[in-house]
Each structure stands twice: as C-alpha cells, then as structure tokens.
C-alpha cells in the first residue's frame, strides 16, 4: 500500500494502514477513525481491541450447520424448540439473520459459505456441500428449503443442490420469486414478472 500519511508518527500511520485494509474504508475514513481513537478514552480503545481478538479466538463454524458461533453446536442447532424436519440452505451467515427477523421460520439452517460461480472458479467443492449431504444421512429432515439469492449464481447453486438432494427422497423447495413489497410493476423485469404470474395465489 502506498504511504498515505508520510508525516504521521509511526504507530498512528500503522493504525491508519490497518483500517485502510478493511472493506469500504478509504484513506480518509481510515485517518478519521484513527484520530477518533487517539482522542477516545483508554477503555474504549481497549474494548474494541478486546472485541476484535475475542471474535477471532472464540468464533468458529458450527460443526452441524456451519453458521458462525461461539458454542458448538450453535444456539439454533441446540434449541429443542426448533423444527428438526426442515433445513433452510443459505449462502452466508448474514442470510440467517435476515430469515430470523421474519420470525416465520422455525426450522434449522445450513450455511454454504458462498455460491457456485463458474467464472470466478468457485465450484461446489469450495462450498459446504459435503457437510450438508453428510448431515442429511439418516437424519429426521423431510424438507430442504433452498434459500440462495435469486440471481444467476444463486439459481445455479440451487439447481445443482436439487440434483444432489432429489435422489435422497426429500422434499426440496425453493424460495418463491416475484415482486417485492412496495415495487412498481412498470419497473419489473420480464423474468420476475413471469415468475410472479406463475406463482399467483387465490385472493382469500
């Protein structure tokens, strides 16, 4: 990295450099964060440093669902209230947070940690697919919900998983596709509109 702050004291320059490595942090933001911490009370800086170390030390992937967790198995996998007949397959841990916010899903999850992207050289072997198949062996799971993103890579991943899961005699479902709340028909693309038509429902 080019030296962005040639005149700053060495420890300051180093912190700026470290911040600059983070996603979405440009040179200016890195300087701002650094000078904020310089002025902040000792405890605040300590807490931040501690939090960063703790995340790296204590957080691992759940051996069952591959979600990030500090207990193994994770809280969701351990929870006896959850419906063990369903697994919802998602791309990233953040997708679990989104689904949990709905409060309408009570089954289990499986995190793939990525998505098939042939042009980037990312294939099924780079995802937690083996782990999913292993987990399904002799389990009580009856339905697998494929909740990858509705874009080209997500669809490719779902199609690929479907081929692997079908022969196991499970119910394999895919999240519905259609119009988002608050959308404009006028701006919808044909693909989305035709899926919305296909998935239309009786008004009750």
């Amino acid at each position, binding site marked *: 990295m080019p030296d962005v702050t040639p005149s700053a004291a060495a420890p300051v320059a180093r912190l700026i450099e470290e911040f600059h490595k983070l996603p*979405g942090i440009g040179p200016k933001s890195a300087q701002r964060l650094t000078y904020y911490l310089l002025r902040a009370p000792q405890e605040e800086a300590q807490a931040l440093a501690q939090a960063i170390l703790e995340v790296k030390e204590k957080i691992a992937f759940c051996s069952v669902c591959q979600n990030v967790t500090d207990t193994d198995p994770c809280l969701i996998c351990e929870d006896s209230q959850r419906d063990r007949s369903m697994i919802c397959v998602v791309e990233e841990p953040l997708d679990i947070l989104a689904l949990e916010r709905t409060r309408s899903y009570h089954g289990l999850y499986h995190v793939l940690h990525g998505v*098939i992207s*042939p*042009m*980037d*050289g990312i*294939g*099924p072997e780079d995802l937690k697919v083996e782990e999913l198949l292993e987990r399904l062996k002799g389990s009580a799971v009856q339905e697998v919900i494929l909740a990858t993103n509705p*874009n*080209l*890579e997500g*669809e*490719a991943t779902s*199609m*690929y998983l479907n*081929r692997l899961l079908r022969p196991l005699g499970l119910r394999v479902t895919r999240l519905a596709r259609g119009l*988002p709340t*608050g*959308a*404009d028909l006028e*701006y*919808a*693309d*044909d*693909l*989305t509109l*035709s899926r919305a038509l296909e998935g239309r429902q009786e008004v009750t």
Partner: protein
Amino acid sequence: MPPPRVYKTEAIVLRQRKLGEADKIVTLYTPNFGKLEAVAKGVRRPKSRLAGHLEVLTYTSVMLAQGRNLDVVTQAQAIESFAPLRDDLHRLSRALYAAELVDRFSPEGAESYHIFQLLLGTLRRLAAGAGADVVLRYFEMQLLNLAGFQPQLQHCVGCQRPLTPVLNYFSAAAGGVLCPSCGPGTVSSRPLSVSALKVMRVLQSGGFGDVLRVRIGPPLAREVEFHLRAYVIHVLERDVRSAAFIDRLRREGVEELAGVSD
C-alpha cells in the same frame, strides 16, 4: 470517438461483482463500445429498478452516464433474458463459458460488433435448445476467427504442404495442424483424427447451419473439444475457469445425455 456524457447502448451483461454496501460493478459487452464496466447503484436492494434488467447473461438496453472513473447505469430495460438457460445447468454452464471467453478475449474499449453478434447468437441458440456442445464449439472457433487467432487447418504449419486425409497432429503452440512427418517432433502436438479435422474446418469456415448437418458422435465431440480448449488456453495464456464446472457436471453425470452430441 469518445462516447458523449450520457449515452444509450445495447449490451450483454458478462459478469457482476459487488461494490460497497448495495452496488455492483457490471461488465457489459456492447456492439459499438466493446467491453465496458459500469456501476449499477443499489442493485443489491430488493426494490432496485435496475437489478432484474442487469442480471448476468441478459441482453439489455442501458442508459449510461459518464462518471469520474466508471460510468454509471441510469436506466436499464431487458430485451431478452434467455429464460430457458437459467433453468438448465447444462446449458447455463455453456453460456457462462461463452461469456467468460468474450470477457477474456476483449480488452476494454476494443471494437466489437461481430463478437457481440456472435455472443448474442450463441445465447439464443443455447436458449433455444440446440446441442449445447456443438453451439459452444462453433462459438469458440468463430471467436478465434474474429479475435485474429484462427488456427491453421489447411496446410501443415511445419512444412506448409497441404494436409492429406490421414491421422495428422494438432498443436496449440504451433498454431494449427501438423502433418504426420512434422507432428511427432513438435511440442504439445496431439494426434488429430481425419473426422475431427473435418469438423474443425466446418466450424471455422461454415455457417452454423452447415455445422448442424455434420453428424458428430460423443467421442468425436470430445476430441474436437479437447483440441479447441487446448488452443484457447494457449492463446489466453490462462485457464478458462468455467470449464471446470462443465467438466464437473459431466463427471457427476448431471448432464442430460441428449444434446451432448448433436
């Protein structure tokens, strides 16, 4: 001529990558401006008005505004989204391979009308259900022609004598076919059957209709694929990443058997 400040173009979306919180950078292939990258703002939000019109492998009409670094997509309207491609891994994997090749073969801003038409035709053929591998071989050979890398299939690249209908050799490094006396001594030369040479000639100088009239069984299709892929990798000086996925589908028997040959 540099494009004006706000301009409209047709394009095929080759790829996307994430940018910041909710944006993406899309790689567009256009008939007049060649390959260009543009920022599509907010397309990772569910209510984006652009997202569905800028999916990978969509033929779309876009309005672009010149930005400081990258141009910004201000409007987009999909023209064809090749829906059947998206429901079929077998065809999708081929379409991605084609898009990757166009991306790799095209420096940004190079003139591109014919390559654009070739890619569009290829996506249409794949979506229409023509034999996916034949479509792809035709695409590869025609792309090599348009990019100025056509392999020599008429004369021996070693001794320049016309080729005879016997077992010849193909060498990516030498740039084409070698006769039986020049072939064995040349680096990376592999045997090339009479039928494979014939198929490659039709791919190179025929129309797609001519290609469809040739009967190509699976072993012959594999042979031609092997030589062409070696040639493409040699020209690009790197692997074609999407090829690994095609190979994997084949290995796992996920392929529909129909459509592999013709």
